[in-house]
């Protein structure tokens, strides 16, 4: 929400939430299947791609690779290699490819994102 002063909330028959505020009314679509993944959960940059693993969903942006998981704030896993990112989930579990406008790199990605170490296995 764009303001922090929340006075009262109300759940309507559709399950959505109305918030009475000091300077506006906000309607939060709790029942919406949509979610915004953005700076507010620490995903920076323009969004490019997303792919799911058993541990959660990885997101690539112009700034790097992010993993929100179930945490309130996302973690930037890798942001070292330039402005433009391209990723694709490889057939082999745990591997994916990322690259810049300059080059493509293949990485060995640990499935458990709490292990932040990423190992480059091939690059050109």
């Amino acid at each position: 929400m764009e303001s922090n002063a929340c006075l009262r909330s109300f759940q309507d028959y559709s399950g959505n939430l109305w918030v009475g505020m000091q300077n506006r009314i906000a309607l939060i679509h709790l029942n919406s299947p949509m979610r915004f993944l953005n700076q507010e959960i620490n995903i920076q940059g323009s969004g490019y791609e997303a792919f799911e693993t058993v541990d959660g969903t990885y997101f690539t942006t112009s700034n790097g690779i992010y993993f929100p998981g179930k945490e309130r704030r996302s973690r930037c896993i890798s942001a070292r290699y330039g402005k433009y990112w391209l990723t694709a989930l490889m057939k082999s579990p745990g591997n994916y490819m990322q690259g810049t406008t300059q080059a493509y790199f293949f990485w060995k990605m640990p499935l458990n994102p709490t292990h932040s170490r990423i190992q480059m296995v091939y690059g050109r």
Partner: protein
Amino acid sequence: MLHFEYNMRYISFLILLLMGPQARALSGKYPIRNFMPTEYKAGIQNIDFAQNRDMAIFVANNLGVLSFNGNTWERHDFKTGKKKRSLAFDESTNRLYVGSQGEFGFFEEDWRYVSLIDQIPPGFGDFDEVWDVFLANSNIYFCTFQGIYVYDGQSITVIEQEGGIERSFLADGKIFTQSQQGRLLEIEGSKLVQPYPQGQTGTKIAGVIPHDEGYLLVYNSGQIELATPFGVSRKYDALSRALQGTYVNHVLQLSDTRLVIATQTSGLFLYDLQEGTWKQ
């Protein structure tokens, strides 16, 4: 149908997720639509809501009562000089009850307003704001700091507490309030009784939520207690710490296991009682 016009200022990208519990477990921000005063053409402050079975939303605004049919806003009882503070819609009579500054009553069909002030017993007409209106036990409860005015459809009786009371709450069909000394009180018949032991008394209660064998008491300070007939204990310490300094204004139990905690300085907290996690 609502038109979704979201502020895209910070949005990097949008993902469509499956509905249901799986969607709730994932991170991300819910879509939010902000209605500005320039859109609904009334005052800036909005305090309470109600809804009828036609799905219309009613809002207690500081300049009048607003209604929203999903597409357009209307204003009612506009700029009377009395700020609207509380609302409750009674489906059995199709009335919208309204509490305002020194005034309470209801709207009938076609937005005809009926004041109940004339029915207040002599000597009880001096009150300031009607902060809450509740429907319970076939009565309407207009809650002020001077007393609770109970309307049974025919007449009004007043429940008082020496020294006055604080905010009032509806939980599980029961009406609770807090004495000026900080004690939790419950309406029993036409009296206020002290139902449960209580730990904190020096801070105001912002929410009373049914929980286990008793009630969660959420204080302005962010402290949370579980009060039962058998004793009182502190609960949800991690959440309490997160709420510290935010000044809790209001607490709502959603239809699932989550609480919505409205704060003065830090927005909303969505707290899942089962998982012990929250989103801000």
